């Protein structure tokens, strides 16, 4: 394993690997998609000429001469590929999604066009899909009792925005706690994690500013960047040479036509990227940010609570100071078992956001029982509730991560991402294996999340495992045994243990972006 030490910036080895697709597998994947396309055209032909019954939604006879509302071709993938394996998604669960979950069994008699419930509940499926990193998705325990008490005291909803009547003392308590947890001066909490990004980036940057965003940033960051009206430039995923080149070009050339200096340069990165399992190279990003005098917005949706010796996130994982990150954003959805998001930073920044953020002005504030859940779980992680449960959970997650990744690599699967990230993508590549993997794992009582094209690049379909502190070693061993069997059955063990050394990966100069007209 190549160990990267960048002139003392990294205090611990940074092991990230993205093994290249084997050429044979890539060619077979294209053949697979080609065959599916051919059959798609055939079935569409049969449906059009009424040889086969069309089960898709169609317009009424009276409306046939109107201009169609939707284009047929845009639905091609949905009709012919997604429908065939649709039973791997949107599975209805009927218990709290902790380490084990109950699922309602459903069958389809017309190849996934309609589902019927048999009435049976499949019990105790090992849940490898929930973002339950610290295991706080429980229905009993201190968090639940505290939240129930607050529910009876404050009610279920606030029914107002933060700036009108929705600012409860619970919110103030939460924000002080979050600020203490992160080690920043002040913090603000919002009702929805997605809305935290999409509503606050427009408040921070505007026209005449530059946003440098990572290739694989989440939809909320992309939406926020677009809503702000700033110029967006995309750098290659986690590639510091690409980022530095963009920064240099931006400062040397200024704004596109007028050559004026940019008002602000904001770098958008995430702590852990949830589809790749990679961790941002934060020491290098901070060094670049300081050198070129730009601002850093760090989205710790998946890394808060999941990384770092005491769960304080990616900043603690690298041993850096939280003052270097200008805007620390995160969500309470993943590790804290609640809902909502927060932004932490300097007091002036947060005071500004309290006035100008769209979420603060227009969106309802967090609901009180949810706030109590966050407060209790955060105190538990920090150890302030008097027990060592929090610390034990963080350590258990780190052990689970290391163990699971090591065992999967030993078995011969291709796993993407950093050694320490609790998100483990296992590569499947071929479209048929996406459906097969999901179904085989469900037969063996393990629930996984699978993703394919167009959500991922065309040859990189994957199954994504999210580890949790609530998974015991026995559960992981059972899961690993089943994954091993399914891997042998579906021939998923592609790894040739030939990792692309990170320093040798050539930086491709070519980026083609969608130009705005």
């Amino acid at each position, binding site marked *: 394993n190549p160990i990267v030490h960048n002139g003392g910036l990294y205090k611990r080895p940074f092991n990230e690997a993205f093994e290249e697709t084997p050429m044979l597998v890539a060619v077979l994947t*294209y053949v697979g998609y*080609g065959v599916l396309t051919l059959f798609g055209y055939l079935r569409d032909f049969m449906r059009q000429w009424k040889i086969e019954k069309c089960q898709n939604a169609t317009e009424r006879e009276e409306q046939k001469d109107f201009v169609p509302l939707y284009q047929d*071709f*845009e639905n091609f993938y949905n009709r012919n590929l997604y429908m065939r394996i649709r039973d791997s998604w949107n599975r209805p669960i009927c218990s709290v999604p902790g380490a084990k979950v109950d699922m309602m069994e459903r069958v389809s008699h017309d190849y996934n066009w309609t589902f019927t419930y048999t009435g049976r509940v499949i019990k105790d499926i090992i849940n490898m899909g929930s973002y339950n990193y610290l295991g706080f998705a429980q229905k009993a325990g201190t968090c639940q009792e505290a939240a129930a008490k607050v529910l009876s005291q404050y009610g279920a909803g606030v029914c107002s925005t933060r700036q009108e009547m929705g600012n409860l003392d619970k919110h103030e308590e939460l924000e002080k706690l979050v600020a203490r947890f992160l080690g920043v001066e002040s913090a603000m909490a919002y009702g929805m994690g997605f809305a935290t990004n999409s509503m606050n980036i427009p408040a921070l940057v505007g026209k005449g500013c530059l946003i440098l965003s990572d290739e694989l940033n989440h*939809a909320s960051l992309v*939406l926020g960047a677009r809503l702000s009206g700033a110029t967006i430039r995309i750098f290659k995923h986690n590639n510091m040479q690409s980022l530095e080149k963009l920064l240099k070009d931006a400062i040397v050339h200024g704004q596109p036509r007028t050559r004026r200096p940019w008002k602000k340069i904001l770098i958008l990165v995430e702590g852990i990227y949830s589809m790749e399992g990679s961790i941002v190279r934060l020491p290098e990003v901070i060094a670049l940010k300081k050198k070129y005098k730009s601002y850093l917005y760090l989205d710790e949706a998946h890394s808060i609570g999941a990384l770092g010796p005491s769960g304080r996130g990616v900043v603690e994982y690298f041993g850096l100071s939280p003052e270097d990150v200008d805007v620390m954003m995160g969500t309470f959805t993943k590790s804290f078992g609640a809902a909502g998001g927060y932004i932490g930073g300097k007091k002036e920044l947060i005071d500004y956001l309290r006035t100008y953020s769209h979420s603060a002005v227009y969106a309802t504030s967090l609901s009180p029982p949810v706030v109590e859940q966050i407060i209790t779980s955060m105190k538990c992680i920090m150890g302030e509730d008097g027990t060592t449960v929090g610390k034990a959970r963080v350590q258990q997650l780190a052990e689970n991560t290391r163990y699971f990744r090591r065992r999967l690599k030993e078995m011969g699967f291709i796993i993407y991402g950093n050694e320490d990230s609790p998100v483990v993508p296992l590569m499947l590549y071929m479209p048929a294996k996406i459906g097969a993997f999901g179904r085989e794992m469900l037969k063996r009582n393990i629930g996984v999340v699978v993703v394919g094209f167009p959500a*991922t690049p065309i040859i990189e379909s994957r199954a994504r495992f999210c580890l949790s502190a609530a998974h015991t070693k026995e559960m992981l061993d059972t899961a690993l045994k089943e994954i091993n069997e399914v891997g042998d059955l579906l021939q998923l063990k592609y790894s040739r243990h030939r990792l692309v050394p990170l320093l040798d990966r050539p930086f491709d100069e070519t980026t*083609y972006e969608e130009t705005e007209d």
Partner: protein
Amino acid sequence: MNVGVAHSEVNPNTRVMNSRGIWLAYVISVGVLHIVLLSIPFFSIPVVWTLTNVIHNLLMYLLLHTVKGTPFETPDQGKDRLLTHWEQIDYGTQCTSSRKFLSISPVVLYLLTSFYTKYDPVHFVINTASLLSVLLPKLPQFHGVRVFGINKY
């Protein structure tokens, strides 16, 4: 928005031709087509080569220059709905490496076909017409051009 999607790519169709292994898959599929045609007993070699050339160009014209839009919904509000796949490659940037590859491969096939048909006049006319039909739409000047309004919407 790109909800549930792992990247901020607005139209994944633009990157398909740059993916790893697709050029090899393309060459292999042309090879397989040729072998299938060769195994039909009553076609002579020149006829097989002309058929390979014509069928390859026909399929290329259909897939790259006739079918418009994307087979999945994209978050760009339909900007690419009226563009063929060729026009969508790399968001319309001209003379990228995939475009060069896809322009050169019909020419290579044409040269091989001309050799194997021994430069017979009838085969020449058919092959040249077929080559022109697939080379002209690839010129940068023809980006977004719809002759006589055919295939406009």
